[in-house]
């Protein structure tokens, strides 16, 4: 039985449409216009127990809305979802004791008190046995390297330290499912890496199910094998992470090292010049033109080294989302 099973899940928000200007504001007092926003539009997917899945998409794509639906924070407009055998929006305590939702932009800890006070409160709320609680606090604070900070008021911690405390609070009750919404947002590189390493280790050790949204592709590449891409409320891709670049990137990058000290002047003929560092150059070439471009380059120039690479995941995603108006199927190679 999958940990998460979603069928035709939809969430439509009815939002007030405010036109520009004072006159429109006054008119709005008497006649309000509303529009329906399809934040999530009949999506289907399944996540198996112990899987770590990335949920990707631009801002407003529906990622966070999906997480909110799966955590029972909001009610759907239509469709079904079963998470760990429960319907999330029924908000049964039996379900709420089995998952955690961590939102990088929201603070759950008591701001003015040391994190250990929040942890103690969680111990009671989640009914954690004392010896188990002590063991878990020790384990998690060690793993996240915050043993010396648990007695310090949360407001005095840095963003990275605070996020690590949030993770501890979220994991104290050993949830079977962890929903992470932008867990590394705003963190510096060192903190980001610490959080990534911790999540990777913890998920492997405990085999918990993790659903993660992030704009940092480094997070995604470091943690997940599978990615679900959502845009405009609909799923555009669901499969291995490495397939994303193959499927959505219409270009490849040819890196050439020419014989001699320079690069030829008319390289633009072969593709978009991304970078020149004589005698090396990088060209962005449409996928279908790669063989002919390679032949042409090898025919015309003396080349010491040549390689073809996929574009970084980040760029492939940017390309996909910039062109979101078109159906993704048309981009299939």
């Amino acid at each position, binding site marked *: 039985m999958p940990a998460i099973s979603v069928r035709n899940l939809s969430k439509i928000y009815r939002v007030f449409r405010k036109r520009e200007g004072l006159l429109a504001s006054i008119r709005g007092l008497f006649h309000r216009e509303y529009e329906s926003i399809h934040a999530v539009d009949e999506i289907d997917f399944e996540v198996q127990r112990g899987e770590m899945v990335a949920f990707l998409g631009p801002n407003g794509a529906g990622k966070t809305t999906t997480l909110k639906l799966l955590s029972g*924070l909001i009610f759907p407009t239509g469709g079904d979802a079963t998470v760990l055998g429960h319907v999330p929006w029924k908000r049964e305590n039996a379900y709420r004791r089995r998952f955690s939702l961590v939102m990088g932009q929201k603070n759950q800890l008591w701001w003015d008190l040391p994190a250990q*006070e929040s942890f103690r*409160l969680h111990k*009671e709320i989640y009914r954690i046995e004392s010896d188990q609680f002590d063991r878990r606090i020790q384990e998690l604070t060690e793993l996240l390297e915050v043993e010396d900070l648990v007695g310090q008021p949360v407001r005095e911690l840095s963003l990275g330290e605070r996020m690590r405390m949030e993770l501890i609070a979220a994991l104290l009750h050993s949830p079977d499912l962890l929903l992470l919404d932008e867990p590394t947002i705003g963190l510096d590189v060192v903190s980001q890496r610490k959080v990534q390493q911790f999540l990777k280790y913890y998920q492997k050790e405990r085999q918990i199910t993790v659903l993660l949204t992030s704009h940092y592709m480094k997070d995604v590449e470091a943690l997940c094998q599978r990615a679900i891409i959502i845009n405009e409320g609909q799923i555009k891709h669901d499969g291995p992470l490495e397939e994303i670049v193959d499927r959505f990137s219409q270009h490849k990058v040819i890196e050439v090292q020419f014989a001699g000290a320079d690069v030829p002047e008319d390289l633009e003929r072969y593709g978009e010049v991304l970078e020149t560092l004589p005698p090396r150059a990088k060209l962005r070439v449409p996928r279908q033109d790669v063989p002919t471009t390679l032949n042409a380059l090898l025919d015309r120039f003396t080349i010491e080294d040549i390689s073809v690479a996929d574009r970084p995941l980040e760029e492939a995603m940017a390309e996909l989302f910039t062109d979101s108006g078109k159906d993704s199927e048309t981009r299939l190679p």
Partner: protein
Amino acid sequence: MLARARTNWVILKTCLEERFVYRADFAFATLVRFLPILTQVFLWGAIYAGATAQNASGETELNNYTYHEMIAYYLLAMLARAFSSMPGLASGIARDVRDGTVKKYLTQPIDMLGYLFWHRIAHKLVYYVIATGPFALVFFLCRNYFPRALDGPTFLALVLALMMGFLTGFLIEALIGLISFWFLEVSSLLFIYMMLNYFLSGHMIPLDWLGPIGAWVQFLPFKYLAYVPAAIVLGKPGYVLGGGLEQQLVIEATWISVLLVLNRIAFARGVRRYGAFGG
């Protein structure tokens, strides 16, 4: 049951600790709230000095209240308000709904109303620790204004009325806060409520001064927030044991039950339409 009691105790303890973080500010705010009591005592002194109506014993009397009774009434109404006023409760709920903090009540196995209740108890306990001294001093200085010593049963009825006043005030303000699930911003509504409450609870003037309107106001729950405890101590008609007080307390308990049910309904419906906007 035991586990729930322990959870509530830890919530209370954590809230108390939080309250003590800004103890200096809290103490200052509490003490400053005593200033209006003094000005009000002087104001009533000036009003009675200008009044000409006298009762049979030759004392100045306005609407059946002598000056001493009026000062006693005012101080008792203030005591009742110390239990029933809920500063920041409705606006706090509205803020939590607006900024998404309410999420913790929806995703964690805790009851929002219960949590807020214990939070408020902590708020009140810290308030009493700071305010008991000044309150005792004011009541001691004004001891001659109080007409009679209370017998045991009446004292118990007063304690019960104060406790139920706390519950009534809590549930009314929580209900206003929950309206934010529909309107997000409730500050204007809260302002209107505070204004009406000042008048309809008997905080401003005794409800028996309101004439025919007063008879209607008696049917509302607001009188339990200030007027009823004062009327019990002053032995006003309808508020003495064996003379209607028991019925008043039963009606108050009924109001509390109704308000509790309304809170539960508002929460259940509110979270259904909650959009959790903004990340």
